[in-house]
């Protein structure tokens, strides 16, 4: 079963004279549990593709089916539903400085009605232990290293067991060692849970974790 199925996607910014085509006739499908890395030079359109897959940007031509929902010309409610089933990892950790690691991870669960406070904290503790932060549950971001912070944000993206995780340059602000550790943890947790992962990166040091590598250049998949 395809988690992501893209057919004939075109996308452009601007209108008329200023119109700039960033994605041309994209065809792409990703299986359940597959880890896909999308690489390409700056301005190749890879981030735009990621935001369309995540329901953060609206495409108007072609077909983009994610988790069985058509996202092209979709309404806000559809995109909102897709977002709630997707985990996001950004280049910066984007953690609340006022909150502990546990509280930051719980933010992803407070969105869902089905958990009690105890269940949220237990789930947060479990996933933080899995990313190697079992001794840092009540640390705030300022007390953690860059790699540890990114592991908290990985825990936050995974704690609600999303079907898809979208990551944008997750290692860009980390050194080689902690960057590779972070994505390795991401990979092993994804494999355990059958989570599909779509990573956009420039970082050639982490290409080894991918099942498949897609290269995008000038809006076209090579």
């Amino acid at each position, binding site marked *: 079963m395809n988690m992501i199925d893209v057919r004939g996607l075109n996308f452009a910014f601007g209108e008329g004279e200023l119109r700039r085509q960033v994605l041309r006739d994209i065809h792409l499908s990703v299986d359940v549990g597959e880890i896909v890395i999308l690489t390409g030079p700056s301005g190749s359109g890879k981030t735009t593709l990621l935001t369309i897959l995540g329901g953060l*940007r609206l495409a108007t031509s072609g077909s983009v089916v994610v988790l069985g929902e058509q996202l092209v010309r979709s309404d806000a409610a559809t995109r909102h539903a897709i977002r709630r089933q997707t985990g996001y990892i950004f280049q910066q950790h984007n953690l609340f400085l*006022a909150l502990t690691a546990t509280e930051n991870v719980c933010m992803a669960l*407070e969105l869902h009605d089905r958990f009690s406070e105890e269940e949220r904290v237990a789930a947060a503790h479990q996933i933080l232990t899995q990313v190697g932060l079992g001794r840092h549950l009540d640390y705030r971001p300022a007390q953690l290293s860059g790699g540890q912070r990114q592991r908290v944000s990985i825990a936050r993206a995974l704690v609600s067991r999303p079907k898809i995780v979208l990551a944008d340059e997750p290692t860009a602000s980390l050194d080689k060692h902690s960057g590779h550790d972070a994505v390795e943890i991401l990979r092993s947790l994804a494999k355990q849970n059958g989570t599909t992962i779509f990573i956009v990166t420039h970082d050639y040091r982490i290409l080894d974790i991918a099942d498949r590598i897609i290269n995008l250049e000038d809006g076209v998949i090579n």
Partner: protein
Amino acid sequence: MTGLRPVFFAARLAWRQLVHDRPKLLAATLGVLFACVLVFMQLGFRDSLYTSAASAPLKMQGQLFLLHKQTEALWRPVSFERSTLMRALAVPEVRRVAPLYMSLGQFKNMDTHVQRTLMIYGYDPNAELIQIDQFESFRAALQHQDTAIFDVTSRPEFGPIQELIASGRDITEINGRKIKLVGTFSMGTTFAADGNVVMSDLNFHRIYPSRSLDQIDIGFVMLAPDADIAAVQAALLRLVGQEVQVFTYPELLRFEQNYWEKSAPLGFIFGFGTLMGLVVGMVIVYQILFTDIGNNIPQYATLVAMGYSHSYLRHIVFASSIYLAVIGFIPGVALSTILYGVAEHSIFIPFPMGFDRIVSVFFFILTMCVAAGLLAIRKLKSADPADMFS
């Protein structure tokens, strides 16, 4: 998320962020506290003005009062003929009438010899027109030539009169005439008069020799115990309404307060001061909320990407503004209560801190903070997750 859960979670997040950043919390608290104290003081001054304006008529004992038609305020009455007051005796329910003479005069400080203006009341000591504790003990002395009693709540610039009398120095000058102070009483100062002196009508005439005793300032009318005050008032108006105004006791109080509220632009001045305090407080709270949103844009955008709605983000901002209102208000009330006490002691005018005052100022402060929040939430528009991807 359904029901009140998002509101609760947003309020909890706002609280955690607020207590995490102590310097910011302190700055915000001081901003709200400042506005709070400013509003309390403005309202306090306004109210004490109105109360003190009425503190003179408050002590006047009579059922009906006659004032010249042109009298605008009690502290500067226009005199009228004593015979007009005497005609009131024609109404059967009227038991007695008595004239009160009053005028601002010069009182010499016995130590510094500096003259200051105070209010001088003159009336027959047998009449007891002004409520004074143990007045009987002064009555005999007041009937002597050139005697008076002094209001100890007068401003301290008149000298420590009570101590001076106790030490035997009881002769001062009023309007340049030597007067012996034979006792003290408590009445209260007003914005028109820094102090008060009471003497007999004859002594009043001695220090104002040019004023005839036939020209009186306020006519007091005392009625039979079971008399219908409104009916007598109507009867008096028919009788002497051409020359004088006839007030009941509550009307007299309202008449005097009205003067300060309307004729003097005091209500506007204090209202403007209150508004300025709230505007300054709002700007401070707005700045803090706005900067805080700006610092958290990546985090808020991440929440939106996860599936949180923009209304959740607005709840965070409004919860913060309500917290700031409460956190700033509590020390604000405490400090204002202390300042009310200080003001009461230094200007000798009552500053009551009532429960309704506290409630209404809290409402002002809450409105101020929520308005600041309303202005700040525009900044949330920049929390767009599509911009978060580099």
